[in-house]
C-alpha cells in the first residue's frame, strides 16, 4: 500500500450489516490485515476506541439510526488515552445524496466510501486515509481533516493559483480591459 503496511494496522469495522461487515473483513484480511475488530453496535465501537489502539475505523452511515455521525463527532472531540482525535475514519454509505455527503464531511470523516464498494476502492480509500493524511483542523465549529484536498493529494487540484492571487490578478486585468 505504501508507507504503512496493512499488516501493521489495527482496523475497526463498525457496521450492523453483517454481510457487508463480513465482506469488508474478508477484503481487509485478503489485503494482509491481521488485526480487524468487528463491532455491530456503536457502544461497543466506542468502548474499543477508548480501550484499544486503532489505526483506522470503518463506520456505516446508517448504523443505529444514523448515529454513526455522532460517533465520529465523539472521536473528534472526546479524548481517549489510546487514540488521538485525528484517527482516520472511513464512512461507508449507501446514501450518496449531496446533503448526506456534506453532513458526513462536516462531522469530520476522513474518507467516504459508497456502497457497493469494490476491493480496489477499499484499498484506495485506506491508502488515502492512512498514507495521505490531510491537515487536521480544529476550529469552534469544525474538527476534522481539512475539507479541502491539497494539491499533493490531487494532481488535478488547481486551487493554489487562486490562493496566491494569480487568478484574482488575471480576473482584475481582464476587468480592467
Amino acid at each position, binding site marked *: 500500500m505504501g508507507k504503512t503496511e496493512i499488516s501493521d494496522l489495527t482496523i475497526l469495522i463498525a457496521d450492523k450489516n453483517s454481510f457487508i461487515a463480513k465482506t469488508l473483513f*474478508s477484503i481487509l484480511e*485478503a489485503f494482509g490485515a491481521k488485526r480487524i475488530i468487528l463491532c455491530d453496535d456503536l457502544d461497543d465501537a466506542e468502548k474499543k476506541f477508548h480501550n484499544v489502539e486503532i489505526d483506522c475505523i470503518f463506520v456505516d452511515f446508517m448504523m443505529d439510526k444514523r448515529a454513526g455521525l455522532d460517533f465520529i463527532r465523539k472521536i473528534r472531540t472526546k479524548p481517549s488515552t489510546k487514540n488521538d482525535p485525528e484517527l482516520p475514519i472511513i464512512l461507508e454509505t449507501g446514501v450518496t445524496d449531496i446533503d448526506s455527503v456534506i453532513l458526513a464531511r462536516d462531522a469530520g470523516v476522513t474518507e467516504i466510501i459508497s456502497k457497493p464498494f469494490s*476491493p480496489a476502492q477499499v484499498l484506495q480509500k485506506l491508502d488515502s486515509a492512512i498514507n495521505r493524511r490531510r491537515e487536521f483542523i480544529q476550529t469552534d465549529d469544525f474538527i476534522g481533516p481539512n475539507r479541502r484536498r491539497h494539491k499533493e493529494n490531487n494532481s488535478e487540484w488547481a486551487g493554489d493559483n487562486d490562493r496566491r492571487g494569480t487568478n484574482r490578478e488575471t480576473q482584475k486585468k481582464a476587468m480592467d480591459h
Partner: protein
Amino acid sequence: MNEHLNKEQMLARANNAVEKAGLEFSGELKKRIRELEIAIHQNNRQEAVLMAYNLESEASTFGWPRVTRICKWLRKIFSGEFDLAPEAEEVLDALNALKVMVSNPEERNEQRDAALFEKIYPSLKRVISEI
C-alpha cells in the same frame, strides 16, 4: 500470511473473498426478502428501512441490480422520501417482484426479471421520480 503482497495479489485475493461472500449472500437472499416482507406487513417502518437499506447495499455489492433498485425504492418510501404516496398495491407488487426474482438464486432468469421490473417500473417511477 505473506506480509509483502503486491497490489495485484491483494486485489486478486480480495476479489475471491467477495465472490465467496456473494455466494453466501445468494443463499440467504430468499430468507432476507421474507424478513423484509414481514417487517412491512407489521408496519414496522424503522425495521423495514434498515432491512431495505442493508439489502440494497448487499444486492448492489453482489450483482443484483434490480433487487437493489426495488430495495432502494422501499427504503425511500418507508423513510418518507417520495414524491407521491404509494398505494398499498404498489408496495405489494414490488414485494412480489422481489420474491420472484430471488426465488431461485442459483438459476437466475434474466429475461423474467427484466420483464417483471419493466412491469412495475411505472409505479416505482410514479412514486419516486428519480428511482
